[in-house]
């Protein structure tokens, strides 16, 4: 199959369409604008609907209505816009509606900046909205991976009736790389007997609801959701690991930072330091189990992020105090260089504090 040179935002949009997306609701924000712009052209060609909403709040609630009516609906935004969607995301999770949400994230807090950042990790994995809910969060590290994840995103979301959240940083959205987007991707659309499509007088009404005034009923509902989340933890945890068993130091990084860290690992190797790599692909469920593979004698783990330290919490949980944990981060749209991270890795291997 021919490879296409595409911009990340457009590659994700095309992959979503080939993965079955037919409805897109969004609101302009940099650095994800090419995604809705692409959708505004392509969805019409495939018999779908693109609609620019009045706000991100409007957009996510349109996704709610569309998903509850049985459609494969999607929204994308960037950090401050994703912040506005949190109410809707909580409702979507409560109502168990499948959909796909993309965050091409930028530096924060507040209006922040428009350069790439990974400072929305807490927002994505800890629940920016209210209540006991989870999202399936995937963080691609290159465009082909972004395409592959997006292609199956609707299938996975429908299987569990939990939204799939694609956490791409600004670099993933803006960079161009050759990608293959298979035409013949066969989607496994789940059967949906719960959607609101009109009773035609032939069945009892279907009700999409998030209100449970009886605490016992709400607890039962939350336990039901939690059982789904446990299944997702068992089935959908994804990560990439290299040389964890026999390394001197481990570098834990995701998304774009993991690509930079790969160069850092080569630099460290030239100084005789063997660095293992742990790259979570699913940020939730987080691959805590992967830490068990790490050499017990490793000198430590460096968590590298484009944030002030957010995945760091999960690295600490996964390591269970077995290794010293170090952090190196750049934030606000600043990107770490391979040398900066390599320097930290070498220091850890040499037993120096970083």
């Amino acid at each position: 199959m021919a490879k296409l040179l595409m911009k990340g935002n457009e590659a994700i949009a095309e992959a979503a369409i080939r993965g079955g997306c037919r409805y897109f609701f969004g609101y302009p924000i940099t650095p994800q604008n090419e995604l809705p712009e692409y959708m505004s052209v392509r969805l019409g060609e495939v018999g779908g609907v693109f609609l620019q909403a009045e706000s991100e709040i409007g957009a996510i609630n349109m996704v709610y209505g569309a998903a509850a009516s049985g459609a494969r609906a999607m929204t994308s935004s960037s950090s401050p816009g994703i912040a506005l969607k949190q109410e809707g995301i909580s409702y979507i999770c409560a109502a168990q509606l499948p959909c796909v949400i993309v965050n091409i994230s930028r530096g924060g807090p507040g209006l922040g900046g428009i350069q790439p950042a990974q400072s929305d990790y807490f927002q994505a994995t800890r629940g920016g909205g209210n209540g006991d809910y989870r999202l399936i969060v995937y963080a691609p590290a290159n465009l082909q991976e972004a395409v592959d994840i997006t292609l199956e995103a609707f299938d996975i979301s429908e299987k569990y009736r939990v939204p799939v959240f694609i956490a791409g940083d600004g670099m993933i959205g803006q960079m161009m790389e050759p990608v293959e987007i298979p035409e013949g991707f066969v989607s496994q659309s789940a059967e949906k007997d719960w959607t609101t499509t009109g009773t035609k007088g032939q069945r009892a009404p279907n009700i999409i609801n998030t209100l449970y005034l009886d605490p016992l009923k709400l607890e039962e509902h939350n336990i039901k959701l939690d059982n789904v989340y446990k299944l997702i933890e068992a089935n959908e945890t994804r990560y990439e690991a290299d040389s964890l068993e026999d390394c001197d130091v481990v570098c834990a990084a995701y998304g774009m930072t993991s690509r930079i860290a790969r160069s850092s690992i080569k630099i460290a190797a030239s100084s005789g330091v063997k660095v293992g790599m742990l790259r979570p692909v699913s940020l939730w469920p987080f691959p805590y189990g992967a830490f068990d593979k790490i050499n017990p004698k490793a000198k430590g783990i460096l968590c590298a992020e484009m944030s002030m330290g957010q995945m760091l919490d999960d690295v600490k949980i996964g390591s269970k105090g077995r290794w010293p944990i170090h952090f190196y981060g750049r934030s606000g749209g600043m990107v770490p260089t391979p040398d900066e991270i390599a320097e930290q890795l070498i220091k850890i291997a040499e037993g120096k504090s970083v």
Partner: protein
Amino acid sequence: MSIIYERTNGLTKTSTHYCPGCTHGLVHKLVGECLVELGVLGEAIGVAPVGCGVMAYNYFNCDMQQSAHGRAPAVATGIKRVLPDKVVFTYQGDGDLASIGTNEIIHAAHRGEKITTIFVNNAIYGMTGGQMAPTTLIGQRTTTSKSGRTVEHSGSPIRVSEMLATLDGARFIERVAVNNPVNVRRAKRAIKRAFETQLAGEGFAMVEVLSSCPTNWGMEPLDALKWLKENMIPYYPLGNLRNWGV
């Protein structure tokens, strides 16, 4: 034996949770009857608000979605864009529609979404225990305007129907009241026309129903209807503000 009156099939048999004398139930009945009389109950998808009307999802005998506070018009937009041949309506209170949800309602109307909105204006936040709404009248006492609403502090009450009637996408806008049988009949005619607007593919349609909240107004049901007539109708004049094809 002929049947003169029966419970509409537009509503389920579930008893409502509304307070005695509350007009929400009456408005439900009118909507249910219109859906049945237009023959579209089986094609209808309703969106319930956050407010006393939230459990409308248990009362309307059609597919229902419950939305976040004020977001019903956006949810309805999502439904209608996916299912353009279905009949989609929102049922919203004045806190829901005229305060937290102003953005969603204005833009649904602005886009000319082919949905029908039933806007129940009782000049107060009912469900949360009687706080001031943007529709609360000047001088009206609520739990957050204990000496009565003043213009200086909170501005003048918002007339949503007049505001939305300025938008081209709003093809049918009418304000009605349910304080006496004549007005109830008029309200039903307006609700039916609002659904016909959608069926004709014309655009957005809304009926604002002046309604009572005896519990939070602190009145007997009949006194509440009298208060509605003497205080609400003078400020919120009844009548049609936009009607396509007329």
